[in-house]
């Protein structure tokens, strides 16, 4: 009467290769489409085109944090290690996009505002989010025991995700106090289609990245389990 096998020790069902090709094909198409079809903006000229990588990066970074939050909560609730591995993969991909968003924002800010950096609420909270994700990943790399690592990083992930809106709120308020206003501009419809297409492409791409990293993590855990079982006298039921 052996208990149900722990799902995280099973090897994952790998994603079909065609999905990756489709996602990348779509991504290249949407990027080319948006860049080639969008007219130069009256105010910003071609700079506006940065939007097609910047806004989707920012969106998927927050979506990735959402997945971290979900995975962490689910792990604490059900103690399913797969949720922990999913959260970790998502944090990693999220950190990459977070860094990308920052760099793109700076490249856009330099010609627009004349400075590489401004303590704007969005920029600042993205930077803080990046630091929180780095901290999360550092914690994971410093803890070996899988159960402890899962539990600790789940809690850190949840509280980190809670902190994101709080940081945003406090920085926004901080700037209001110092009477610095950001001026948001509404988007004209001729740019909207390219942006929406890229948002979709980035979302799919991120999902694919996270899934691939998740697969790798599952294989690693399964391999660990197999060699552990082998060391204790072979695999049986």
């Amino acid at each position, binding site marked *: 009467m052996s208990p149900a096998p722990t799902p995280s020790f099973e090897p994952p069902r790998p994603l079909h290769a065609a999905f990756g090709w489709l996602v990348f094909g779509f991504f290249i198409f949407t990027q080319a489409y948006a860049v080639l079809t969008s007219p130069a903006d009256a105010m910003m000229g071609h*700079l506006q085109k940065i939007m097609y990588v910047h806004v989707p990066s920012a969106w998927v970074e927050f979506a990735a944090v959402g997945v971290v939050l979900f995975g962490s909560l689910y792990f604490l609730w059900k103690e399913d290690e797969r949720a922990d591995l999913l959260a970790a993969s998502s944090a990693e991909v999220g950190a990459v996009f977070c860094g990308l968003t920052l*760099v793109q924002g700076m*490249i856009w800010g330099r010609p627009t505002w004349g400075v590489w950096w401004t303590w704007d609420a969005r920029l600042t909270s993205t930077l803080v989010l990046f630091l929180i994700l780095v901290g999360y990943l550092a914690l994971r790399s410093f803890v070996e025991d899988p159960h402890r690592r899962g539990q600790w990083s789940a809690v850190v992930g949840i509280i980190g995700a809670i902190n994101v809106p709080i940081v945003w709120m406090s920085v926004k308020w901080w700037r209001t106090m110092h009477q610095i206003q950001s001026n948001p501009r509404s988007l004209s419809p001729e740019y909207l289609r390219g942006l929406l297409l890229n948002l979709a492409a980035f979302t799919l791409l991120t999902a694919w990245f996270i899934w691939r990293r998740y697969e*790798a993590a599952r294989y*690693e855990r399964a*391999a660990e389990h197999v060699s552990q079982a*082998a060391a204790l*006298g072979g695999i049986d039921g």
Partner: protein
Amino acid sequence: MANGMIENGGIAYVVAAYVITWVVLGALLAHAVGSARRARAEYDQAVKGGYRT
């Protein structure tokens, strides 16, 4: 943010932003595919070794 302040419509900045994005995404792609493949191979190795004992 005055009109016409940006030379060439800021092409150089646009190119820089896209190049950086694609390079980073390319690196992430290589990392994701490579790590999944390596982990897969490691797992297969462990299974083979595990049954032999």
